[in-house]
């Protein structure tokens, strides 16, 4: 099986792009990630990830409409590519396969 290079953070960003369905751009993705995962994510980290994703062909981008709160500047809107979706599915498959192969169920430990 072909190896897909997708970092963990990239995976989160890619999933968020799917989640936002056509409204995915830097700020929205950042806020969504913060909201959903509670991670302290910064804009530039997201942008860097998006850049790498675009280079890998997982997402494509286009310039969207301008909005007033951005000082009339346009957004770059990201959408996932078929290849990106395939990659996400592959990752999921590998994980579920691995989990299914585990000798025992995973139990999070309770710290006192």
């Amino acid at each position, binding site marked *: 099986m072909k190896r897909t290079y997708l970092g963990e953070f990239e995976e989160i960003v890619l999933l968020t792009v799917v989640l936002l369905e056509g409204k995915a751009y*830097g700020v929205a993705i950042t806020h969504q990630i913060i909201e959903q995962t509670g991670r302290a994510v910064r*804009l530039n*980290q997201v*942008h*860097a990830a998006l850049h*790498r994703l675009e280079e890998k062909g997982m997402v494509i981008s286009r310039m969207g409409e301008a909005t007033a*709160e*951005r000082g009339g500047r*346009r*957004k770059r809107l990201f959408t996932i590519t078929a290849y990106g979706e395939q990659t996400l599915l592959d990752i999921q498959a590998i994980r579920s396969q691995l989990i299914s192969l585990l000798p025992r169920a995973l139990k999070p430990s309770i710290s006192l």
Partner: protein
Amino acid sequence: MKKNLPPAPPQPPRWADKLLAWFCAPHLLEELQGDLHEEFYFQAERLGYRRARWLYVREVLGFMRPFVVKRQPNAYTSISYSSTSFLPLSMIKNYFTIAWRNLWRNKGYTTINVAGLSVAFCICVFLFLTAYLQLTFDAFHQDKDRIFQTYFFANNPDRITRTGNMPLPLAPALKSEYEEVEAATRVLTSRRSLITYQGKHFDKDVVFTDPDFLKIFSFPLIQGNRQNALNNNSSILISQSVAQAIFGTEDPIGKLLQITTEGKQKGYLVSGILADAPYNSSIRFDALVRIENSPHYLSNQTNWTANSHQVFVKLIPQVNQATFEKRLKLFTQKYLAEYLQSLQKKGAKPDSRGDIFTVRLQQLSQVHFDTAISNGPPIAIIYALLGMAFFILLIACINFINLSIARSFTRAKEVGVRKYLGALKSQLFVQIWSESALICFMGFAIGGILAHLLLPEFNATFDTRLQLAHLHQPGFLAWLLGIFILITFIAGGYPAWLMARFNAVAVLKGKISLKKPGFLRNSLLVSQFVMSCLLTCCTIIALQQVKHLRTKPLGFEKEQVISIPVGTLADGRQVLQRMRNKLANDPTILAVTGTSVNLGRGKDHVSSRSTMGLTYKGKEISSDMLLIDYDYLKTLQIPLLAGRDFNRSYPADSLDRVIITQSMVEMLGEKQPVGTFIKDDADTTGGKMQVIGVVPDFHLYSAAEEKRPIMMHFSQSEPINYLFVRVSPQSLKKAMNKLQEIWREVAPGSEFTGSFLDENIDAWYQSEEKLAQICSLASVIAIILSCSGLFAVALLLMEQRTKEIGIRKVLGASVTDILFILSRDFVKMVLIALTIAIPLAWFGMHQWLNNYTYRIEISAWVFVGVGSAAIILALLTVSFQSIKAALMNPVKSLKTE
């Protein structure tokens, strides 16, 4: 006092924005900044302004990542960005490639431009070199700032006279009386002297001078000792070329040379070899000997009234010329009081500096241009040449600018498309400018090659010795480079700038206006025509003046007379006698005579003049002295007004008899001149001369000069230097050949350098002639250049007006109507140019003509002629294009849109 304004919306820190804009790749800036601002407002609302600002800065700094800083401009050229407007070197090559293709596609335009520029540049090189050679006259002497030529200044009652001829005792007196004078030398170039060495004869210019000559002038001494080379009265210094001619490979030092000057022979020992004087040296010599050897030295060495030679002095450093001239007043009063008194008697008043008669100094660098003390051209002519060079270059540049502007409209679409595709103004400017630079470069290169090829031709035609090597000095090359850059920037830069400014949208919509730069273009065309009309008018008037001088009656018949210089080897009197015997029975020879002074300038290039001043019945009279022989009047067909010619049947004629001219009669104030005795009041011992005949005035020297009184005398002892032979009109060439044959018998060993007198006379006007020729050449080139510019502008205008013409035709305009419309503007411009040029030309030439005693009146026909010629030329130039445009099928021209 603050008013209650709503609080300004919070803004992210400016500097952080700028920082981002600086490091961020242009194509990423918009989205990143947008995201950052959006986040900022979000955070500002949530966390407050201060915290949001802090976060903003942190985010911006966080964006300093390779993917943000890395630039990928190619994919995003449509975004205008200014931070990369500096020239990428790789693009320059591309610009030149594009420029070359563009030029190649528009061959007509390129040819006109390149040809115009190269011709202009070539002629500029010639004019510039001519001027350079003249302006650097004598500039090679090391201490040129301290070297002066002395001259006499006299403020006569009617005019100021200046002369560089000095008496023999002057230089030694100056040197002994003034400690400011570091060195002083006399320079006397006599008639050609004969140098004899081992039976070989050479006619050379031997200069009589003082040992200080070598201290003042820095002619390099190739062999010999500078300190004592001329210490001996029998030493001779020879020039390198003379050394080569006489001795070949032999060592000349210490060899004995025999030199014959005016019949006296003396032996000299060669003590050194001097480098040849360069072409631009006022002082020329083949050999130098001590002035004590000059003829008449002994009789004149204490005579303050016999002026014969030039004097050069070298002052010690830090001596001011004006102060020294003031000190010379006393000198004049001490030694030259006679002159002073006689001038005072005539009623001369002191000039602004308080001088009636004095010795003054002329800077060596100015000597060449001082027409009173040397025979160089007036400096105004040199400036005229430089001005002409400037004009021609200007005309070529105007052509260049006009063509580029005119063409910019046909190229507007290209510019529009380029702009639309994202080309920056600066890029467009460089691209268009590089085309101009390429044209300029080609023009200069071809011009340079042309100059190189035509230089020998130019030198031969105008009798100069220009060398392109003069241009190889770093200073000049820098100038040249400067001019080149200036031309490319002015002539290429302006249209490029104009085009780069085009509004892309307007251009693509076809809305670019044709009117706007029309004013500039028209004024440039007008000034071009002003210049060429000016040059033409001036040239024609100058040519008329020269022709006037040439055809003006001289007072004698110059046709059919052959003039033969006797040379230095033979004795003129003997040769004349033998000649007369030989030709006595020849029917084709009408008269033979001898004289001391040639008329015009013959093949020996020698001119000499002897004048005599005397006081006659209290009046100061100055007259030319002319030695003649029997039949002089007959040979030159000068009629007698009264009295008789010299005649063999009056033996006393050979003593103290003179024939005088009419103006001499007027000077003497005698009603009955024949038979009167002319005698110098001041000289009691001198003989008196009886007038035996009166002839009308004639021009002994240039016809440009005033006719001066002449006394013609007959002498058995003074040397005859020229023979004049009048031949019958049928066989001029044959007579010349015959004389050449006879010459071998009558003057064995000496060269025959006979020439026709009318040709010699023409040689008088050589400098005017040369100048007029150079002017004609320049004005012809100016006119051709102007016309080619007009032609090209017309060509491009027609191209732009094709549709207008088509519409006019469709609406019923006839071909003549269209021709009229198209030509009208051009004729208007030429008319404007003429109204400017004509008064200027009239004024300028009026001033110039004032230099001549015998001058023409400026005829209005010159201006009418030049004016109509200019209009006709302009019409012809334009009409070729107009007719083509007018005859075009309107269907074709209108269909294109």
